């Protein structure tokens, strides 16, 4: 209790930082759900591929011993773009291989879930066996820096030490904190604008509202679904870079728990609702930290899930309700 009141700001701000990463990943769940009413269980792996892409960029440039973000900002931007593209690409692949054949057959939702679980295993294991896959092509030595530690923690070769910027309460806010929150909010804002203002965005909303009418109005639903997956992937890639900035290491099963949390955030905020994903993510991040302070960190996940159940019981449609179709800026 003493810790909690004493360090309220630190717990809250670090919770918000983590929560904004949850929120970015949650967007992918929420958008796919809004359009297809499918829980894209493999989205966690889309995020995981982004974390590796980020690390690979730094391995490629092999910048060591840089201590400030200032010196790294260029590489960071490159990593961000690459991670977003990689995650977006994986999401597109996922849509093509695991979902489109089922959507075409108009299969029951449950079977799409099985396909997603299968795809999730495949993606995660492919990353965990990347050394062996590289060996097929005789590349395990050339690519050693990239495919090494296949089943283990894969770390960034650089060490980015945060710098304190200003103090709130007892807590010194660092540049990483600021970058994470600002970047996450910026991404989300851009997505909102895209969905609400552009032609593509209108397509997404039309399909989310009423797929049949949208088809009659000439919206190419396959294109819209692809775009939805891709956008979700981009957001997950951005989340991955921010995650690596803070955590610095990843592994082939890093997506699983994180994905479950992000999905929880999406449902909490009201699945299908973009701003709901943000709200859900932030609440989840903060609640986890507060819960850890009160009860001990081992109860962190329990706090998260209990909160979810309570929110759904009080507001079955989530905090902000479901409304990808009605998304407005």
């Amino acid at each position, binding site marked *: 209790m003493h810790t909690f009141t004493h360090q309220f700001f630190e717990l809250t701000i670090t919770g918000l930082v983590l929560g904004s990463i949850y929120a970015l990943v949650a967007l992918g769940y929420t958008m796919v759900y809004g359009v297809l009413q499918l829980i894209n269980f493999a989205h966690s792996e889309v995020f995981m591929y982004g974390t590796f892409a980020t690390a690979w960029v730094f391995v490629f440039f092999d910048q060591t011993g840089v201590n400030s973000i200032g010196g790294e900002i260029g590489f960071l931007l490159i990593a961000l773009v690459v991670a977003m593209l990689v995650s977006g690409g994986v999401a597109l692949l996922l849509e093509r291989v695991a979902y489109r054949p089922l959507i075409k057959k108009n299969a029951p939702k449950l079977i799409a879930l099985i396909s997603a679980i299968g795809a999730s295993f495949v993606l995660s294991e492919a990353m965990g066996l990347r050394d062996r896959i590289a060996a097929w092509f005789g590349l395990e030595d050339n690519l050693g820096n990239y495919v090494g530690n296949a089943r283990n923690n894969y770390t960034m070769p650089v060490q980015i030490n945060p710098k304190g910027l200003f103090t709130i309460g007892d807590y010194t806010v660092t540049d990483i904190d600021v970058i994470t929150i600002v970047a996450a909010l910026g991404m989300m804002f851009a997505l909102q604008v895209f969905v609400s203002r552009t032609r593509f965005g209108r397509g997404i909303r039309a399909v989310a509202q009423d*797929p049949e009418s949208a088809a009659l109005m000439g919206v190419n639903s396959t294109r819209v679904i692809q775009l939805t997956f891709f956008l979700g992937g981009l957001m997950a890639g951005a989340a991955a870079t921010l995650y690596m900035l803070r955590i610095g290491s990843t592994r082939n099963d890093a997506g699983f728990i994180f994905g479950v949390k992000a999905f929880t955030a999406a449902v909490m905020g009201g699945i299908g609702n973009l701003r709901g994903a943000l709200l859900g993510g932030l609440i989840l991040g903060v609640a986890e930290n507060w819960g850890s302070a009160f009860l001990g960190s081992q109860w962190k996940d329990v706090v998260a899930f209990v909160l979810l159940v309570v929110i759904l019981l009080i507001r079955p449609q989530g905090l902000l309700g479901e409304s990808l179709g009605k998304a407005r800026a």
Partner: protein
Amino acid sequence: MNRYYDFAPSGLSRGWSAFRGWLGGLLDNKPTRVALIAVGIVFVYALPLLNLPVITTSGVDFGGVMFDAAAYALIAVGLNIVIGYAGLLDLGYVGFYAIGAYTTGILTTYHFHWPFLLALPVAIAVTMLSGLILGAPTLRVRGDYLAIVTLGFGEIIRLVIVNTHWLGAAQGIDNIPAPPNIGPNAPGQGGGLFQVPHLSWGTFPNIIDVGHKTPFLKFGPIDAIPFYWMIVTAFFIVIIADILVKNSRVGRAWEATREDEDAAELMGVPTFKFKLLAFALGAAVGGLSGAFYATRNGFISPATFLLLLSELFVAAVIVGGAGNRWGAAFGGVLVAYLPDRFRSFSDWRMLVFGLALMALAIWRPQGIFPPRRTRRALAAEAQIEELEGEAVDV
């Protein structure tokens, strides 16, 4: 569950339906049917003794594998009540498996010292009760959200175990006793009422493997086959109960609720009550399987009851054919058996498993053995759709 798909009858499926027709013809004759079923049941019991080529796992003890397969089949039949009959997607089913196992562990060794056979019904009752307690708030949540809420509960159950000293925490509970032996209890390989020799296919004349016998019925730590017989017996009892319940007002209410919840409600079906019932009955079967797992393994720890297992259970039911008890059971057997049969894939196992799930989902979306009537209804639907020519591409 309201979307359907059409069928393109392939040569294979035509052959299969011809086979089914032939089988159906055989089964129409009552004495033949009884005889066939009897032979089938004897075969199932004898399976781990036969050492059949191809089927028998080479790297892992086949009795142990068969026990797991039967345990998973039992779980799948239980989960099928929830998913297949009532149409509720439960991603936290592993929680009930854990509750069954832990109730057994706590009652038989950790805090009390009850005999297993006394603990078993209590474990089932406790699991059923927990199903009611968890179901009452969650089942009011809308269909799609139910998945994440149940997933959350499954994880909460595991985390509570990990963090609660009274439940053995991460260390788990060991020395869970086996069921009482029937027959003399001599130490070592002996004991049991009599010994059942295994078969051996290696060298033709020595087809009976006298050096390798299973005592009947001695539940020891070095032979899993008596445990297998026990769980298969439980499986058949559950299947009979499942048939009786499904084939009654209760089963109709489930099916109606799954097909159209609003319409069911307006036809006087108290849908919430029946969903809760399905949840509790499914939980009870999961708990039963968990109790058997605990006594067979002798040791339980939260590391077993991972979220991943829930996904696997759901995959078993859906891959096998949700709504068809035999399909679900087959899915359970498949999911337990194949990893042990294909141990030679070693590191690639999980990857291959994922690919297999995707392939099955895409090529056989209705499951390997979908319920017959679902198939018929779907075919009719497809026909109507074709006639109306209004296939709206979503």
